[in-house]
Each structure stands twice: as structure tokens, then as C-alpha cells.
């Protein structure tokens, strides 16, 4: 995993002998990948590239209004895109091999599992076993997509582990799930011109600000993505083999007995991910895991209940499942273990971005969590819709982009929640995350001069009246006492 990489490079820096065991158990459909972990191979990287492919499709449409002339209808070639994406990933896999070698880290493409204290067994793809002992161990085995447990799921459905290297265009697709993985994939597939339906069991983007989640869903729906709400698949059957084939999906309502059927070329399951902690021999060394979720509880030094065994990344209980979090945690862990440092990983105010067709950047509390933690009367929410200048000429939505800032009145109107829905949301959010880390207050925000004309300036209180892209401030009355201004 990529996290392993940052951490082992750090350890090797302190002249410790380091070994990495990285192995990808093939997907039910036989798919596998190289060194780098989920983010590099079947997560963030290919996702963002395919999201970009979809955005470029939109840009092509917009470009006509800016004077670009091209006569034919523009089509997308799945294979060209996928080959380019996989080529880039290949270069990253190789880059990590080289980096490990340069830092003199021993790398084995083998499945590691504990067999007794201080000892792991490494099994390579040919079944050859070797035993290794070490002073300390770091588990960063990550997660894999969950399957539904219904007839036909493993035989006929794909997951994100398969999607980014699919050797044929998926065609008419049913995405099952409402996670960011589901919505991001549904988003770019639709953006490439495919017929996409999302089947949602209950709410969208559980854990995220629900006001923003609903806006994301609305935007997707208004832009041609179909949603089937409050249904779960109970059976997937193959009508016809092929690349893609034809599948029949039977689904049942979560609210009653209604059963529906639908035909799709591809069914993509994105209903969650399970930690890879059940088959690595943790019982042999006494590492406690949460039996229900498979996640590993650690202290604030990323140490498990076994003092010489540490854990990083998505497998941690009560931590964020984000690549940069794992990288930072890993780097600091090694600095503490071998560099004499004491800094712990700060898991508070970690910014994140969801790359749905309308991107969503966030840092800090959701509105509902802020209300729960501080009390409705103690928070102030400032919000505004905005119309990106680039969207004016091509007549794109003028009331969908949205920014929301949540402040804690009791603490000098400190900014405790930042939410933005619009183009380049990740780029917009990154800087504000640093400001929030420094204790940004509403007053400081107000006294910051905006950059014009950019989307991010909506997050600063702007006094300039701008025709057709007015950023106006409404103060959402959360309290009964504050004044209207």
C-alpha cells in the first residue's frame, strides 16, 4: 500500500532494516494490480482521471459557446481512456519499486500473515512460503469492496476494483450504493455518455453533511442520472454473456413488498468496504480487532494492544479513511519511533473532497454535527449560492453552486465547518483547511480580500457588486437573538 511506502521510506531514513510485503488477492473476476495500494491502483488516482475525462466532455460542450467549432457530435472511447489511465498507474507502480530500492527497503510481492509472535509468513503467488521475524510490525492492509451476499453478486457484478481497468465499455450501468465511491463512479460514467442508474438503500453519503449530500444528488438527477430510492437488489442473473453482457437485476423495496426488475449491461457494487484484517493471523499474536467491523482499535500513537504491532490507514477504528491521513500518520509514527519526535497525528479538521459531477469540498463539522456538539443557539451558518463566471456564457446552472460556513459563536465566531459545492472544490478547500487549522474566525475571513473573479471568493464576504454573478450573503437564522444585516 502506498501508506506502507511513505512509512517505510521514513524508517529506512533512520537506517532501520525494513521490509514491505504487498500482495493483492485477485477480485472475484480475477483482477489484480501492482505496488501502491488502493489509492494509486483502484481509488483516488484512476477515479480523478476518469472524473476529469467526464469534465472534459462537459467542457467540449461549453466550448461551442466560447467560439470553438467542431461539426460532429463528440463521442467517448472507453478503451483509449482506460489504457491511458492504466499506463499512468503502471508508471506509478514502477516508481514505487524504484523508490523502495533506492531506500534499500526489501520488497516482496507476497501475502503476509502472522504465525507467532514477532514472526510473519510470506506466501507469494506461486505458493512459496518464507518466514520473517522483526522487532516491529506495521499493518496497513486496507480494505476491499463488500459484496451484497445475494445470488449472482460475485459472478456477475463488478466493483471499483474492476471498473478502472475494465477492458470494455460498461454500457448501461446500475450502481448499487450511495457512498462517495458509488456517486463518483455514477457521476463520471454518466459524464462519459453512459446510461446510469443509482440504487440507494436509504440516504446519500452517510456521514457527510446531509444538506450538501442532497444537493449533490439533486444535481446528478437533474443531469440525467436516474435514482431508485429505498430499494436493494436481491438477485442478479445473466441474460446474455458478453463484454458487456446483459444482466437482470431484481430488487426489493426497503419499505414494503414491492419488487422491481431492470436490465443493465453492468452492475457496479459500491456498498462499502471491509477491512482486510480477518485472515492475517492477528489471533496468533493477540491483536484485538472489532469483531463486527474488522477494524483495529489503536491508541493515539497508532499502536495496537500488542506493543510491537502498529496499524495505519483505512483499517483503523474511529479514524478517517483517507490516503493523506494514512500517509501523515505513518510518517509521524516512524519519526516518533526512530527519530525522537513526539508529534501525534492530528485527525481534527481534515479536509476532504467528493468528486461527484458537482464537486464537494469540506473541512470540519457538518451542520448537523455542529448543532449536536455545540447547540443550535451557539452556531451561526453563513451560506450563499454562486454562479461560476465560466458557467455564465454557456448558460449552465446559475443556482446550484453553493458555499456554507459554520461558525461557533461562543468561540469568537471560529470557523468550525467549511463546505463548498462547485467546480474545483478540492482546490478551493485546501487553503481554507490550513486557515481553519490556524483557528480562522469569521472576522478574519471577512477581513480577507477576495480574488476576483474566482469561485473561492464567495467564501470571503465580498462587497463588490458583480453583474450576473452576485455573491450575496444571507445569514441563515439559527438563533433567535442575532440581528439581520
Amino acid at each position: 500500500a502506498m501508506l506502507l511506502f511513505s512509512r517505510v521510506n521514513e524508517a529506512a531514513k533512520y537506517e532501520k532494516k525494513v521490509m514491505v510485503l504487498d500482495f493483492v488477492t485477485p477480485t472475484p473476476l480475477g483482477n489484480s494490480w501492482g505496488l501502491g495500494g488502493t489509492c494509486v491502483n483502484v481509488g483516488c488516482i484512476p477515479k480523478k482521471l476518469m472524473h476529469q475525462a467526464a469534465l472534459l466532455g462537459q467542457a467540449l460542450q461549453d466550448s461551442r459557446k466560447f467560439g470553438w467549432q467542431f461539426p460532429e457530435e463528440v463521442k467517448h472511447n472507453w478503451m483509449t481512456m482506460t489504457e491511458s489511465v492504466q499506463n499512468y498507474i503502471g508508471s506509478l507502480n514502477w516508481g514505487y519499486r524504484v523508490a523502495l530500492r533506492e531506500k534499500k527497503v526489501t520488497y516482496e510481492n507476497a501475502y503476509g500473515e502472522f504465525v507467532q509472535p514477532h514472526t510473519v509468513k510470506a506466501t507469494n503467488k506461486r505458493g512459496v512460503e518464507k518466514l520473517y521475524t522483526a522487532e516491529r510490525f506495521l499493518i496497513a492492509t486496507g480494505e476491499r469492496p463488500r459484496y451484497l451476499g445475494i445470488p449472482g453478486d460475485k459472478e456477475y457484478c463488478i466493483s471499483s476494483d474492476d471498473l478502472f481497468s475494465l477492458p470494455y465499455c460498461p454500457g448501461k450501468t446500475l450502481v448499487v450504493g450511495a457512498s462517495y465511491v458509488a456517486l463518483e463512479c455514477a457521476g463520471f460514467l454518466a459524464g462519459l455518455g453512459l446510461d446510469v442508474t443509482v440504487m440507494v438503500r436509504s440516504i446519500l453519503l452517510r456521514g457527510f453533511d446531509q444538506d450538501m449530500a442532497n444537493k449533490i444528488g439533486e444535481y446528478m438527477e437533474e443531469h440525467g442520472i436516474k435514482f431508485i430510492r429505498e430499494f436493494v437488489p436481491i438477485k442478479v442473473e445473466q441474460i446474455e454473456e458478453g463484454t458487456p453482457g446483459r444482466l437482470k437485476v431484481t430488487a426489493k423495496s426497503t419499505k414494503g413488498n414491492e419488487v422491481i426488475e431492470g436490465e443493465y449491461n453492468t452492475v457496479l457494487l459500491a456498498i462499502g468496504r471491509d477491512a482486510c484484517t480477518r485472515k492475517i493471523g492477528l489471533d496468533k499474536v493477540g491483536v484485538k480487532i472489532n469483531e463486527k467491523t474488522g477494524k483495529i482499535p489503536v491508541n493515539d500513537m497508532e499502536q495496537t494492544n500488542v506493543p510491537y504491532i502498529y496499524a495505519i490507514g483505512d483499517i483503523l477504528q474511529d479514524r478517517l479513511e483517507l490516503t493523506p491521513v494514512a500517509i501523515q500518520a505513518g510518517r509521524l509514527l516512524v519519526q516518533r519511533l526512530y527519530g525522537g519526535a513526539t508529534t501525534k497525528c492530528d485527525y481534527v479538521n481534515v479536509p476532504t473532497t467528493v468528486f461527484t459531477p458537482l464537486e464537494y469540498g469540506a473541512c470540519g463539522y457538518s451542520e448537523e454535527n455542529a448543532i449536536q456538539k455545540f447547540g443550535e443557539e451557539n452556531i451561526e451558518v453563513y451560506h450563499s449560492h454562486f454562479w461560476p463566471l465560466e458557467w455564465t456564457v454557456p448558460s449552465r446552472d446559475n443556482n446550484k453552486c453553493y458555499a456554507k460556513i459554520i461558525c461557533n459563536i461562543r468561540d469568537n465566531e471560529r470557523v468550525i465547518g467549511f463546505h463548498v459545492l462547485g467546480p474545483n472544490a478540492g482546490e478551493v478547500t485546501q487553503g481554507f483547511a490550513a486557515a481553519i487549522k490556524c483557528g480562522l474566525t469569521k472576522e478574519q475571513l471577512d477581513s480577507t480580500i477576495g480574488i476576483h473573479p474566482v469561485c473561492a471568493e464567495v467564501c470571503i464576504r465580498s462587497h463588490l457588486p458583480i453583474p450576473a454573478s452576485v455573491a450575496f450573503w444571507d445569514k441563515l437564522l439559527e438563533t433567535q437573538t442575532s440581528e439581520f444585516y
Partner: protein
Amino acid sequence: MAQRLALRRLLAGPGRALGTSAGRPSAFNVQDGGDFQERVVNSAKPVVVDFHAQWCGPCKILGPRLEKMVAKQEGKVVMAKVDIDDHTDLAIEYEVSAVPTVLAMKNGDVVDKFVGIKDEDQLEAFLKKLIGA
């Protein structure tokens, strides 16, 4: 694919052209460490070794260009191709970081090297130096 090429070579007999203008195969794909030892390290003639990867765009340009220039040398130099993902050990042994990396080898030693794309004149000079030196 390399196996098909070897089979065709076998069936074609010596001296028959196999898709190259010079009338003899200019480049072969290294099969494994043993093959590399035999046909590159122990080669009587000087060898250029083209380390490349499927995912590398520039490699797809350099490969055919180098093959063409090697063919022009009328058999005085041999070209070996190594896919670094298939033969990672070899690539690591020869300290390949970026691709394409081309090594000039004589009597088992690396006598010259370059990384990245070169044009035909530069390749010709590189090959002539290897043959002549």
C-alpha cells in the same frame, strides 16, 4: 509474443527476413535471466539493451527507431529488449529507474547508456561508438 517470434524464426530457417528491411531480425525479447546471460552478457557481438514498459509512451517511439538504426548496422550489433515489469529483477540489477533506458554492452560490461528518447542521428552515433570502440 516473444515465443511466437522465436517459433517463426525456427520455422523460417536462417537468413529469412522476418519483418525487418535489413533481411535479418534486429531485435529479440529477453525471455528470462538465463536468456539474458546467454544472449547479452555472453554475446560475441556488442548488444544494445532496450529497457521498456507497456505503460511508457516514449518507449513506443524509441523502440522501433532504435531497431531501425540497429538494422542499418548490418549485423555488427544486436538488440535485446527487456520489459521491466516482466523482468523486474533484471531491471533492478542494471539500476534502471526511468524508461526507456538503453544500455550499450560489450563482453558483458555496460560501456554506455542513455535514458529517454533520442533521434536517429544520435542513435546512429551511439551505435557507431559501441561498434567502433
